[in-house]
Structures are given as structure tokens and as C-alpha cells.
């Protein structure tokens, strides 16, 4: 067997793939190279080679099965819909808690401004109470930081899913069967609370209700 010849051919094929695809190489391309390598070995294999051949073959089967399973997970959908939606929801939590905290502090500051109008004992008690309110408001900073960490982790997952989709090529999305659009059920209607960008205000709801009259 002309081992050097096979190595050289393999090297040339790998170089060509790297030039074309960079470091992210599709599974089909890898399978193509493995097939080509095995073809060059035909008629020139002993018992050890045969064992190796079987191992490589089972590896190829494993890769194909894994590819099918990953395709069934619809990674593009995970990236474009689920992760994007989760990040928006978390951003909305930060926005809403920040707005609520500022409202609470506005009220506490207003209360505190009344202290000079009261007798000393009541004013002191009022200041103690507003201090407790300010202290409690620090929750917003902590929850905000924790949510920011979760968003960062989601973005990391998104990047990795993106690399996976790229490695498999466009076929991964095309090969997974798309679910038929099912009729809307009562459970489908339970999506609240809506994100601020998609939420209708009371006036819009009233207009919609009035349109049925």
C-alpha cells in the first residue's frame, strides 16, 4: 500500500477543505474524506486494517445518528426564537423592577420631605422607616446583576448553537420535519405578561372590545 501517496492525497484534500471552509468543516465533508481514504485502501487491507475500517464505519454511523438527533432539536429555532425571547423577557424584568424601584424611592423621598413638618419623635420614626425602604431597594441592583449574568450565559449558548448550525450547514434545518400548524388551544393563549413592545394598553383593549359592538 502506498501509504505516503495516501497521506499526500489526504493532506491535499484537507488543505482544500480548510481553504474553502476555514476551521468550521461540515460533517458531510469529513465523511467524504473518510470515504475517499477508505477507497484508496481497497484491495490492500489486512486483518488489522479491517478492524480499523469497521471502527471508522461505526464512527461514521454514530456521526450520522448524532446529526439526525441534533437536527430534530432544531437548533436554529433554539437560537432565533427561544433564546432571543428569553433574553427579551429578562431585559423586561430589569426594566420593570428598575421603574418600580424608582417609583418606590420617589414616594419615600416625598415622605421624608414631610419630616420637618412633624414633631421630632415622629420625624425620627419616619426617617427610620424611609431608611428601611431605601435599604430594601438595593434588591434591584442585585437582581439586575444576576439577570445580566444569566443573559450573558444565554448569549454564550446562542454562540455555541450558532457554531453547531454552521458546522452542519443549512441541511440541519431543512432535514428536520417542521410541525404542522396546530389549531389555537386555550393553553396557547396563556402567554402573559407581554413584553412592553408587544403589549396593548388599556385604551387599545377598550377600542378592540368596542369594535365588537
Amino acid at each position, binding site marked *: 500500500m502506498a501509504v505516503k501517496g495516501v497521506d499526500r492525497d489526504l493532506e491535499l484534500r484537507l488543505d482544500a477543505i480548510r481553504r474553502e471552509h476555514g476551521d468550521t468543516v461540515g460533517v458531510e465533508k469529513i465523511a467524504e474524506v473518510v470515504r475517499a481514504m477508505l477507497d484508496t485502501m481497497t484491495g490492500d487491507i489486512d486483518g488489522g486494517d479491517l478492524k480499523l475500517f469497521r471502527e471508522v464505519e461505526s464512527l461514521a454511523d454514530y456521526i450520522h445518528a448524532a446529526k439526525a438527533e441534533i437536527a430534530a432539536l432544531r437548533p436554529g429555532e433554539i437560537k432565533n426564537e427561544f433564546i432571543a425571547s428569553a433574553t427579551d423577557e429578562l431585559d423586561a424584568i430589569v426594566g420593570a423592577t*428598575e421603574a418600580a*424601584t*424608582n417609583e418606590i*424611592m420617589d414616594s*419615600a*423621598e416625598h415622605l*421624608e420631605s414631610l419630616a420637618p413638618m412633624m414633631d421630632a419623635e415622629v420625624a425620627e420614626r419616619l*426617617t427610620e422607616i*424611609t*431608611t428601611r425602604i*431605601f*435599604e430594601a*431597594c*438595593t*434588591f*434591584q*441592583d*442585585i437582581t*439586575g*446583576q444576576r439577570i445580566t449574568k444569566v443573559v450573558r450565559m444565554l448569549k454564550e449558548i446562542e454562540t455555541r448553537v450558532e457554531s453547531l448550525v454552521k458546522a452542519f450547514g443549512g441541511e440541519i434545518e431543512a432535514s428536520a420535519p417542521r410541525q404542522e400548524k396546530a389549531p389555537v388551544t386555550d393553553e396557547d393563549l396563556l402567554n402573559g405578561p407581554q413584553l412592553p413592545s408587544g403589549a396593548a394598553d388599556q385604551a387599545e383593549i377598550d377600542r378592540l372590545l368596542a369594535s365588537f359592538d
Partner: protein
Amino acid sequence: MAVDKNMNVLIVDDYKTMLRIIRNLLKQLGFNNVDEATDGSMALQMLRVGNYGLIISDWNMEPMTGLQLLREVRADAKLKSIPFIMVTAESKSENVIAAKEAGVSNYIVKPFNAETLKTKMSSVLGDFA
């Protein structure tokens, strides 16, 4: 020596809400001259033109963190003696050690209460009623 409650205090945090909370707590402790910065580089600019008696800073900010600000302050001949209290959610021992090595005067872990702020300020500035 009595603590001068008219001193200028610089508070640094990228969360506006936290700046507001600390400002209110300081006001209740009798410190009314409070300026705000939203990251280390903004704080450094303010420190170089102002006259501050105390810095209370968060750690986790961009582009310049509280730790970087602390190092800059301690490396600056004009600023290095200003007491610096770190107020942060970073509570690992390696964080506290790094801050101490950089010259922090005291360290408060979030969430905190007014009493903790008062105690730490007293340990840095001296007792105040």
C-alpha cells in the same frame, strides 16, 4: 478630630438606582455634598478637578472598574490619601484580598443596610453621630 460632614463625597456606580439609594442614605447620615459618577474613568476625571474627602465605589463597572479606579487613585500623589470604600456584590475572598492589596480602606458587600454603611464610614473617617 470631628468628622466634617460638609466634605465632598464621590459615589461611583453604574446603576443609577444604587447611586440614588447611597445618596439618600448619606443624606440621612448628614452628608449632603455628594457627587455621582457612573464608572471609574468618569470618577477619576472628577477626582482630578474636585476636592473629595471620601470615595464610595462599586466594583463591577465598564469601561473602568472600581478596582482599576482604586489603583489609579492610590498611584496618584494628589489623590492617594482619600479614603476609599468599595461597595460591591463581589463577595469572594480573592476579591477582598485584591481590593486590600490595592489599598482599599473598607469593603461593603451588597445588599447592605444603613447601619453597615455608617459603621464602615466611621471606621474610615472617625466616629460621627
